[in-house]
C-alpha cells in the first residue's frame, strides 16, 4: 500500500515548482498589465486579471484530470487525440470566429477556445507515437516524409486560418527528429539556408554569391581525400545562389508589406529616414514601446503595479504577446533575468527527464515538449527585446489567455505523468 502511494506521487516536483513559479509570476504581471486603477475584486471576471485567475483555477482541475489517467492511455490514444485536434482545426473553417484577421477561435458563449493551442500537444503525441513505432526508422526518407506529414497537416490548417505565428512553432519538431536520428546533413543544410537567407537580404546577391564561392572553394581545395567531383560542387553552388535569389524575390514580392517591414526592421535594411519614421509609428511601434519599457526598468524595476508604461498601456498586447515588457519594466533586470532563468531551467529539466525515459514514446514526447516550449520562449522574448522579427506567439504560462495556458499545461503535465510512470516501464 505504501509502495503504491509512493509510486502515485512520484511526480517530478522540480518541474512542477518551475511551472508554478511561471504561472504565479505570470499572473502578477497580467494583473499589472490589465488593471485600470484600483483593483476592487481579484475575481472580477469583467477584467482580464479576473478571468486569468479563473483560468488558473481551472488549470488545476485539468492537472488533476491529466494525472489521473493511466500513462498508457496517452500512448494508446495518441492517434485519436491527434485526429480530434485535426477535426477541431478543420471545424474552424465552418464554425470559427474571426478575431484580428485570424479565424482561430470557437466561441462558446462569452468564452473563446483556440484549438491551435491544443493541436500542439496532440501533434507531439502523434509524432512520439509514430517515431516510437518499432517499424519506424528515422534514417529512411519514407519515414521522414511521413513524420513531416504529421506536423504538416496541422501546420497548414493553422496557416490557412491566417495565424502565421503559430505555424512557425511546428518547426520546433526539427529538434525532435534530429534527436531521433535524422541525418546530420539536414542540420547543416538548414543552418546554411538560414545563413544564406540572412546574407542575401542583408548584404545583397553579389556578396552572398562571393561568400558561397569562397566557402565551397576552400572546402574543395582543403579536402584532398574523398573529394566529390567539381560538378557536384558547382551544383551546390548553383542551388545556394538560386536559393538566395529566391529568398530575395520572395522577400520583395511574396511577403505582405507588414511582414516585409518587420524583417526590414529586424535586419535594419531600411535606410530612408522618412520611411523609417513612418515605420516607427507603424510596425516598429510595439517594438520601440516595449524596448523602452524594458529599458526603463533598470536594475531593480519600478516595482509591482508601479510601471508607468504598463499602467499607461503604452505597449499594445502587453498582457498577451508583450507581457515580458511588463516584467522588464516593473521587475527590472533582476526580475526579467529570473524569468529567463526559470524558463531555461524548466526546458533543461524536461530535456533531462526525456533523456532518462526508458520508453521511446515518452522520450520523444518529452523532447517535443522541450522543443515547443523552447521555440515559444525564444521567439516571444526575442521579439519583445527586438532580437527577432515580430512574430505573434504567446509566452508559455505567462501570456493572458485560457487556451494557451491550458494547451501548455496539458502539454507539460502529460509528460510529467509519463515520467512518473517510467518506473513501470521495462
Amino acid at each position, binding site marked *: 500500500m505504501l509502495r503504491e502511494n509512493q509510486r502515485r506521487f512520484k511526480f517530478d516536483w522540480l518541474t512542477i515548482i518551475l511551472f508554478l513559479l511561471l504561472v504565479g509570476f505570470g499572473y502578477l504581471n497580467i494583473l499589472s498589465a490589465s488593471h485600470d486603477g484600483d483593483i476592487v475584486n481579484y475575481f472580477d471576471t469583467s477584467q482580464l486579471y479576473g478571468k486569468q485567475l479563473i483560468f488558473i483555477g481551472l488549470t488545476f482541475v485539468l492537472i488533476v484530470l491529466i494525472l489521473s489517467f493511466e500513462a498508457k492511455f496517452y500512448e494508446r490514444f495518441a492517434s485519436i487525440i491527434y485526429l480530434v485536434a485535426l477535426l477541431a482545426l478543420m471545424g474552424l473553417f465552418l464554425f470559427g470566429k474571426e478575431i484580428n484577421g485570424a479565424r482561430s477561435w470557437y466561441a462558446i458563449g462569452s468564452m473563446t477556445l483556440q484549438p491551435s493551442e491544443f493541436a500542439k500537444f496532440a501533434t507531439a503525441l502523434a509524432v512520439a507515437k509514430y517515431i516510437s513505432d518499432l517499424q519506424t526508422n528515422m534514417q529512411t526518407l519514407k519515414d521522414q516524409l511521413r513524420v513531416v506529414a504529421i506536423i504538416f497537416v496541422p501546420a497548414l490548417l493553422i496557416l490557412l486560418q491566417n495565424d502565421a505565428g503559430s505555424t512557425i512553432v511546428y518547426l520546433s519538431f526539427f529538434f525532435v527528429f*534530429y534527436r531521433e536520428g535524422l541525418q546530420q546533413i539536414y542540420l547543416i543544410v538548414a543552418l546554411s539556408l538560414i545563413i544564406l537567407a540572412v546574407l542575401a537580404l542583408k548584404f545583397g546577391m553579389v556578396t552572398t554569391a562571393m561568400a558561397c564561392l569562397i566557402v565551397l572553394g576552400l572546402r574543395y581545395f582543403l579536402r584532398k581525400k574523398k573529394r566529390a567531383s567539381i560538378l557536384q560542387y558547382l551544383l551546390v553552388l548553383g542551388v545556394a545562389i538560386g536559393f538566395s535569389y529566391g529568398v530575395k524575390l520572395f522577400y520583395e514580392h511574396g511577403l505582405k508589406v507588414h511582414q516585409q517591414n518587420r524583417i526590414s526592421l529586424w535586419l535594419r535594411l531600411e535606410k530612408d529616414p522618412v520611411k523609417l519614421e513612418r515605420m516607427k509609428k507603424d510596425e516598429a511601434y510595439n517594438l520601440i514601446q516595449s524596448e523602452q519599457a524594458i529599458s526603463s526598468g533598470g536594475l531593480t524595476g519600478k516595482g509591482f503595479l508601479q510601471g508607468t508604461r504598463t499602467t499607461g498601456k503604452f*505597449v499594445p498586447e502587453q498582457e498577451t504577446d508583450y507581457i515580458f515588457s511588463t516584467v522588464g519594466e516593473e521587475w527590472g533586470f533582476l526580475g526579467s533575468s529570473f524569468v529567463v532563468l526559470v524558463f531555461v531551467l524548466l526546458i*533543461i529539466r524536461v*530535456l533531462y527527464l526525456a533523456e532518462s525515459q526508458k520508453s521511446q514514446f515518452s522520450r520523444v514526447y518529452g523532447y517535443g515538449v522541450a522543443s515547443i516550449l523552447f521555440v515559444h520562449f525564444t521567439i516571444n522574448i526575442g521579439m519583445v527585446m527586438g532580437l527577432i522579427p515580430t512574430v505573434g506567439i504567446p509566452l508559455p504560462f505567462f501570456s493572458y489567455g485560457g487556451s494557451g495556458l491550458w494547451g501548455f499545461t496539458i502539454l507539460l503535465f502529460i509528460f510529467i505523468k509519463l515520467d512518473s510512470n517510467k518506473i513501470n516501464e521495462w
Partner: protein
Amino acid sequence: MRKLLLLTTVVLVGLVFIARLFYLQIYGGYEYDVFEDTAIRKVYNYPKRGYVYDRNGELLVANQPSYDVMVIPREVEPLDSLELNEFCKLLKITKEDYARKLERATNYSPRLPSPFVPQLSKTDYAVLQEKMRKYEGFYIQKRSLRSYQTTIGANVLGDIGEVNRSIIAQQPYYKLGDLIGKQGVEKTYEDILRGVKGIKFIQKDRFNKDIGPFKEGKLDTLPVPGKDITITIDSQLQAYGELLMTNKRGGIVAIEPSSGEILAMVSGPSYNPNLLVGRNRSENFNKLYRDSIAKPLFDRGLQAMYPPGSPFKTLNALVALQEGVVTTEERFSCAMGYRYGNRKMGCHAHRSPANMNIGIYESCNAYFANVYRRIMDKYDTPAEGMDNWSKHIKSFGLGDYLNNDLSVGQPGKVPTAATYDRAYGKNRWYTTFTISNAIGQGEVLATPIQLANMAAAIGNRGYYYTPHIIKDIEGETIPTKFTTPNHTTIDKRHFEPVVEGMYDVYNKGTANMLQVKGIDICGKTGTAENFAIIDSVKTQLTDHSIFVAFAPKDNPKIAIAVFVENGYFGSRFAGRMASLMIEYYIRGEITRKDMENFVLRYSLEHEYEKPYSGESFGINRQTTLEPISEEEFQNLLKLKAEIPKS
C-alpha cells in the same frame, strides 16, 4: 552528440537574452527619472511672483496673467489646410511661421514641451481656449507676467524674460518657456521673487489621455508663492532724477549714509520698463540693445567708470592728514599751476598760497600736487608710498566691486605700486610719474555709485554701509553685510577740516552759485577730460560734468554723486542736479526754480551728436547751451507735476 544540440541551443539563447537584458537595462545607463518619462505628463503650477514696493510702500511691480501656447511636437497631428488656416489666424501667425516654429520645437526636442506662441493677450486667449482641444499636441500654459505700476526705474527694477538653453543646462529648475529675472532686482532677487513652482504628475495612456494621478499624487508639490520685497529706492526721488536727466546722458546715485540704502539710481537715457513686458519684449529689447550710441541698457550709475576728477582730492586731503604729512594750516603757493621738472599741471586763478580749506573749495591743483608728493615721499621708495596710499583709498570702497546686491557693477580702479611696475619696470618710476592721481585723473577710475559711497563715508566721518537696494524681504532679514559698517583707515578727527572744506565749496567756492537756502550742503565739483576716436583720430570732447555731495553737513540724510556726460564744468549740470536732488529729497519741493528750469531747459543732445556729425566741432569754452522747445519744456514741467506726492 545528438542529445546536445537542443541543450546547448537553450543555454545559448538564455545567455543571449540575459546579455540583451543587461544591454537594455543596465549598460544603457538608464536611471529612472520621472521627468524623462513620456508616460507621465508634468503639469506646472506657477506661483505668484513677489511684488516690489519702494521704501515708502508704493507698489512698483505687480503681476498680470499671460498665456503661452506650448507644443509637444511628437504629439502634433498633421492639420488639414482648413484647420491650419484657422489655427494660424487664432494665433496671429502665418503658415510659414507655423512650419518654422514647429521645426524649431522639434529640433529642440520632439517629446518635451516648447513654447510655440508665447504670451497671448487675454482676448486672444479667450477665443483660442474653446478651440484648443481640436489641436492635438498643443496646450495653453498659464504664466504670470510683470505689470509695472510705474514708468520709472527700468534700470533698477529690471525685467523678466524667457530662460535660454544655457540657463536650463545650468539650472535644471527652469524648463523651456519659464521666465527668469534678466536685469535689476528681478535678477538679483530672482530666487526670492520667483517662489517655487508646483508640479503635478499625471499618468497618461498611449493615446495620450490622462488616466489619473501618478502614484496617487505622492510626488506632487504645491507652488510656493514668491515673496514680496521692498527696495530702498524712493520712487519720487528716482522719478525726479530721471526727469532731470532727460535729454542728457549720465548717472545719478543717491545713498542714505546712515544705512547705505540707495535712494535713487538714475541712468540716462532711460526707458519705460513696460517696454519689456509681453509679446513685444524681444523686439523692444533688441531696439534698446542695438542702440550702440545712446546705450540705454548701460547703467551709467553703476557701470560707467570715469576718472573721478576733483572730488577725489578730498580723499588725498584725508590721507595726508592721517599720515601726518601736512597740517590743515600749512600753505602751498600756486602760480596758475604746479611745476615739476619741465612740466606743469595747470590751475585756475585763485587766492594763493592756499591752506587745506582753500585748497579744497578752490579745488587747487597745485595744493594737492604738493600734498600728494608729501604722502608718497614719507616712505623710502615710491612703491611703498604708493601701496600705502592705495590701501587708504581702497578703504573707501574704491578700486573694487562693492559686493552689493545690484545685478551689474564695475570695480573702478585704484593703482598700486604693481600697476606702475608693470608699466615702467620695477623701481623705474617716481612720484612725479603718478602725480595726476593727486587730482583724480591719471590711473584712478570710479563709478558714480562708488563716488556716492565715498561721499557717504565722508559724511559719516569715517565709515560706510555697503550700498544696497534691498530694504525688506517678506519674512526674512536682509544680509548682515548690508547692516555692518565698513570703517575707512582714516581717523574720525581728520574728517572735520575736509567736511568744512566741502561745505565752503558751497559757501564761497566752485559751487557757490548752487546754494539752497536752509540746507547745509557739502559738495565738490569735478570735471573730467575725455576723448573719443573719430575716424581713427583721438579727439577731445567736451568735459564730463561731475558733482559729489552730501547734506545736511551733520548727520547727513543723503549722499549723492552726479555724472553728466559732456556737461562741461562740474557745477554747470552735475552740480545743479545734485543740489536739486538734495533739496527735493530733504524738503520735498524745489525753491531754486531757476536751477530746475536751467537743467530741464537745456539739452545736451547736440553735444552727443558732434562726434557723429562728420564735421569739426568746438568743445568746452566753444560750446553753447541749446534749449529745448517751449512745448517740450512745458511737457517736462507737467511730468514733474505728475510725480505723486506721498
